[in-house]
Structure formats: C-alpha cells, structure tokens
C-alpha cells in the first residue's frame, strides 16, 4: 500500500531523479579543454622563452661587471709594474756597464717610449680582446 510519504518520495524522485546536464555538455566541455590546453602550451613556451632571456641578460651583466673589475685591476697592476720598473732602473743606474750606458744613452729615449706605449696599450688591448 502506498502511504502519502512514499508517494511523495516517488514524486520527488521523478522530479529530480533525471536531473542532468544537456547531451552536448561533454562535447562542449572537451572543446573548451582542447582550446585551454593549446593556450596552456603556448603560455608555457612563452614563459620559458622569457625566463631564458632573463637568465641570459643576467649572465651577460655578471660577465660585464667581471670584465670591468678585471680591467680596473689590470690597469692598477700595470701602473704598479711601470712604477717598479722606473724605481729599478733608477736604483741600478750607477752600477750599469759603461758600454750599456752608451747604448742606453743612444736608445734610452726609444726604450722608455716603447715601454710607455706598451704599458698604456695593454689594458686597451685586453679590453678589445674581451669585448670582441
């Protein structure tokens, strides 16, 4: 025998039991997911490219700063070496062989000029070699 409660149960089941999304729901969803997955792939590739560019720029900047510091160091070294050479020549001057002194008198200016040019040119040459 059907009680009013069981009748209500049946009617509620009939009313809500068949509740479901439309037949085209899954096809529409899969199309959206397909589009989403393509966008996702493109976005991932763009993000990877951007990260790679940033990494490259950072590495380049580190390298440049290293070059600058090395160049500064080299310039100071070169100045120090030049100064030491001058001091060494001045101190050794009285003990030098007269023959050598004659040669130095003849070519001394040329030698000093050559050494000066070399000392000045080394940092410039190093810098060009690194940048190139």
């Amino acid at each position, binding site marked *: 025998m059907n009680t009013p409660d069981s009748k209500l*149960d049946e009617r509620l089941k009939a009313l809500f039991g068949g509740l479901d999304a439309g037949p085209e729901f899954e096809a*529409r969803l899969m199309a959206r997911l397909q589009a989403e997955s393509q966008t996702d792939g493109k976005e991932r590739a763009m993000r990877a490219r951007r990260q790679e560019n940033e990494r490259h720029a950072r590495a380049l900047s580190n390298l440049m700063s290293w070059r600058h510091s090395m160049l500064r160091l080299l310039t100071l070294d070169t100045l120090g070496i030049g100064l030491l050479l001058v001091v060494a020549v001045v101190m050794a001057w009285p003990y030098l062989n007269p023959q050598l002194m004659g040669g130095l008198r003849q070519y001394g200016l040329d030698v000093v000029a050559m050494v000066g040019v070399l000392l000045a040119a080394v940092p410039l040459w190093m810098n060009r070699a690194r940048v190139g």
Partner: protein
Amino acid sequence: MELVRAERRHEAITLIVGEFRRKVFGLAYSFLRNREAAQDVAQDVFIKVWRALPGFDGRASLSTWIYTITRNTSLSALRAKRPQSSLSDPDVMAAVDASDAAPSGDTVVDGVLLQRLVDQLPTKQRQVIMLFYMEEQSHEEVATMLAMPVGTVKTLLHRARARLSAAAVK
C-alpha cells in the same frame, strides 16, 4: 592522481567528468535554479579542476575538492547575476501555466506543482531535497556536497518532507 602524475591530465579529466558531471551540475542547479546557468557553472568548474589538477595534493578527497570548487563557483555566479527562480525558466513557466489551467485532484500533486512547492522551501531545505532525490544520494554524500554535518542534512530533509507533505494534502 596517478594519471595526473603521469602527465595524463586529459584522461584524468575525462574520468572525473564521467564520475562527477551529474553531481556537479545538480549542486550548481541547487544554487542557481536555472539549467543554462548551472550548465555554464558546471563547465567552469571542470575547467578550473583541469587547471588545478597538477597542484592537487590529495590532502582533501577529490569529491570534497570538486564540491568546494562547485559551491564557490556557484556562489560567484549568483553574486554576478541575481538568482533566477526555476519558475522563470521558459520550459517550467509554460508547464506551470498549463497546470494552472488544468483541473487537479485533491491530493494529486503533479510534477510542476511539486516543483513550485520545492521552490518555496527555504534555500537549504530545497538544496537538500533536490540533491537527495537527484540520484538517491546518501545523507553522507549530500552532507559532503553542501559541506554540512550529516545530522543537519537529516534534519533539513525531515523538515522539508514534512512541509511538502503538509502542502501537498492541502
């Protein structure tokens, strides 16, 4: 989860949609009371699930996680657009008009009138009734779907059925 870990997200979502389509749609419908809006929300829910699957750590169960997304998406949709009564659905409106014109028996409540009575229930009672009878859900499942204790679901269900019975015999 194994499929997600194995980078087979598409297969995973296909399984999830098969398993949860009706439940997600039903839960969204219980909030929105409009078929098209509920379908749109269900679509958005599965897209969100698909996007978030790689980050799903399995701390909560999959169903709890999906129902939470569904509730939040439904509430956002409700906020974006004022709730529409199912009686404003063109199909339901036509059926209600037809039933108003037709003579009805003393205790016979046809589907459309019952739908109208359900619509008049307080929101929580209406949701519990809909979800419970949608797929002969267990109290536990409805409680998980609506994030409320099982005892509350039983109470709401009892009250709703009592109200419907009383209204039906009037």
